[in-house]
């Protein structure tokens, strides 16, 4: 229904503004409803300014910045309506070390409400995980579960 959509939108955009400030360490982010094909079905416009920048459009953002904006929107939605489970497949591939660190800290702050599974090549991300599964193809063409490192000595942050 329209009320439910409007209420959801209002909450998610407040969250989005806060999370952008956190993940970009400053800057501004906002969501706006636009006149879509019909007033019943408005579109959603995203605008983000990384700290110190004056971008005319989000298409000018870099690869890593675009990934961060998407991550901000995802977690803005989670704040509004946590999902019990989330699988992220190499979402950190385009992030530099500093942003991988910030992303993992954000992830950890949600770890109580949502169960995350992260597929990654990033050594830094692995250090944040509490369970680590290695997959191998020692026999070509057949996947095997290598080993389980349970309750890794998660370094208390």
């Amino acid at each position, binding site marked *: 229904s329209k009320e439910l*959509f409007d*209420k*959801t939108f209002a909450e*998610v955009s407040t969250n989005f503004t806060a999370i952008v400030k956190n993940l970009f360490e400053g800057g501004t982010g906002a969501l706006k409803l*636009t006149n*879509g*094909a019909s007033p019943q*079905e*408005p*579109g*959603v416009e995203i605008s983000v300014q990384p700290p110190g920048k004056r971008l005319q459009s989000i298409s000018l*953002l870099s690869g890593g910045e*675009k990934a961060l*904006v*998407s*991550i901000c*929107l*995802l977690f803005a*939605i989670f704040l*509004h*309506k*946590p*999902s*019990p*489970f*989330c*699988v*992220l*497949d190499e*979402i950190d*591939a385009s992030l530099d070390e500093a942003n991988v660190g910030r992303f993992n800290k954000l992830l950890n702050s949600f*770890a109580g409400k*949502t*169960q995350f*599974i*992260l*597929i*990654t090549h990033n050594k830094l*991300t*692995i250090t*944040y*995980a*509490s*369970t*680590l*599964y*290695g*997959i*191998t*193809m020692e*026999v*070509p*063409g*057949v*996947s*095997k*579960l290598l080993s389980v490192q*349970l*309750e890794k000595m*998660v370094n208390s942050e």
Partner: protein
Amino acid sequence: PFFKKLTIFGFKSFAEKTTFKFHEGFTAIVGPNGCGKSNIYDAIRWVLGEQNSYLLRCPSMTNVIFNGSADQKPLGVAEVSLTIGNSSKILPIEFNEVTITRRLYRSGESEYLLNKAPCRLKDITHLFLDTGLGHSPYSLIEQNKVDFIVNSKSQERRAIFEEAA
């Protein structure tokens, strides 16, 4: 945890029965290129009822069945089971533990099971409607698609908000 156990057998590159147990905190899955990590993501999407084979990188759905390797023959069926802890009744069903199973035979015939009892696809998708894992799941982010939300048109973004409403 919500997901307690995932068992994959005969789905894509998992020729042998493989079981993952999940614990508190987040789980990382690592391994070389082509070893089968994204196939685990596909297995989860599939067991939750995904009907569009392209979203699983398959020209046709029977491509999910293990197609053989240098040493092994192709299998005739793909099966994935997912066990969920439901003591907090997040899923609208009486059981404290729910196991959903999906099977697909080379013939194209598919089976869905709920705690080992045959059921329909609708019974499974209905369970997850309110969890963000429903029709346009915002909590499953595919490889190389993280900036999908930023690159899509403002109209397409609506669907994510409707799912969250």
